[in-house]
Structures are given as C-alpha cells and as structure tokens.
C-alpha cells in the first residue's frame, strides 16, 4: 500500500490479494484471494491448477496451460484500486 494512502488501512485486508490471469488472450481472476506475500512458485502452482481445471471465470479450461515463462507482478492497493493485485501475464518486450 502506498504511504500516501494510509487511510486505506483498516478499510481493506492488506494481507490478501486478488490474482488476475491473462492466458491466450483471455482474462480472469482466481475465485479466491491469496496471501499478498505468497511466493511466485505458489502463485504459479495455484493458477496452473485453476486454469487446467477450468475454474477461472473468463478463461476456458486448458489442460495444457503453462505459466512457467509468465511474469508475476504485484501492485499494492491504492485509493482507486482498493485491493492488492497479483497479476500473472505474458512478457511484454515490445513498444
């Protein structure tokens, strides 16, 4: 959480995070929040299982989903996005 958003403390659970996934051009959130400080390895494991089982709304079941080359970004809550966000995304090297 940003220092200048101290008023957010107490309004949200700062230890939890939504997990947003982009896979094959589809996008969705894990149904359950996870610990914001969960390791990248654990996040990768959870989302791989979820996508392979088709339990991510917005992302079609894909039994071969592989996130080993994906990037995991973490964004602390802000006033305009009052929840922590863990984003799992493909690499974006171009501009």
């Amino acid at each position, binding site marked *: 959480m940003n220092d200048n958003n101290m008023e957010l403390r107490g309004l949200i659970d700062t230890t939890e995070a939504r997990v947003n996934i982009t896979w094959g051009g589809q996008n969705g959130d894990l149904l359950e929040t996870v610990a914001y400080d969960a390791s990248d390895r654990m996040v990768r494991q959870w989302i791989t299982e979820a996508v392979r089982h088709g339990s991510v709304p917005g992302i079609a079941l894909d039994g071969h989903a592989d996130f080993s080359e994906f990037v995991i970004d973490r964004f602390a809550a802000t006033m305009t996005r009052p929840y922590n966000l863990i984003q799992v995304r493909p690499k974006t090297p171009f*501009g």
Partner: protein
Amino acid sequence: MKHITLVGAGALGSHVALLLRNVDARLKLVDFDRVEQTNVRSQFHSRKSVGKSKVQSLQQSLQFLFGLTVDGVPHRLVSGNAKEVLTGSDLVIDALDNVASRELVATVAHALEIPCLHGALAPDGMFGRVLWDGQFAPDAEPGVGAATCEDGEHLPFIGIVASYMAHAARVFISENVKIGFAVHPRGASPI
C-alpha cells in the same frame, strides 16, 4: 503550454503520436531509427516514408494530415543526451522496445522529477501494459527468431494499447491524475 516527450516512434509510439495530435501540449518525438518496409504493416508510417527517420516520417504525416507541428530528435537517446532531451518535459512517454533504453528513460525522468508513462506489448498481441513510473519494470527482449509485432497481424490490438496510453497521457495532462491499465484482447483492467 505543457510539453510531452514521446520516446520511441514504432508500433506503439507512432500511434500514440497520432492519438495525441489534439492534446493541449507541445509534442516532442525521439527516435533514432529509420522506417523499414516491414514497419509499414504495424506502425503509423507510410510506404513513402521508407528510408526516412521515423521522427521525420511522423512530423511530415502530422503536418500534412492535421497541420500539426511537432518537435523532433532523430537520435538515439543515450546517457550523454538524455537529460538534455527530457529536460523541460511535463510528461515523458516510453514506447521503446529494449530494456537498456527503457531503464535510461525511467532513471533520467525520475532524476528530473518528470512523470513517466510506459507502454509495452506482448509479441503475440495478447497483452499490453500501460503503467506509471515505478510500477513498471521492463521485460527482456526475446531471443533471435522469436515472434515480433512486425507482421501487422495484431495491428488492431497495437492500436488499442496505444489508445490506452494516449488516454492515460491526456488524463494526466488535463487532470494531473495517473491511471494505468493492463490490456488484453477482451478488455482492460485498471492498475
């Protein structure tokens, strides 16, 4: 009059320039590269511009189409000139495609206390990032032979990401508010 410096006039940068043509700010374009035939498929450069500098190409297009005069720096941004090129900007936009240059832009903009908006694309047209300042960390370039954005197959998505960049820049210039996005082919999420 505010000043926007747009670094990188390729797939994203050329379209951002097009979409910022009526923003209430003076635009400066920075890119050392020249237009190649393949660029025409995915960038806002015409066949007549092949061989010209990308900066000159955009300057001429914006002048011809809209009567808009923009400043241009047709040189590579390096540590020796970055401070001079970026000084005086109210906003820097990074639309580059390599880690070293992106880090240079971010470092110098931060040192000069200039807000920096970054845009980045996945090569398969499946994801884009529009992020501010320290939110952004550049991804390394893929190896030789990997997919690129050059074939133009994903031109509409390039345009979508460029639109979010231009929108974020416009909101910042007019409202002094920083908004960022994660962009995918089915929509975008605020960051």
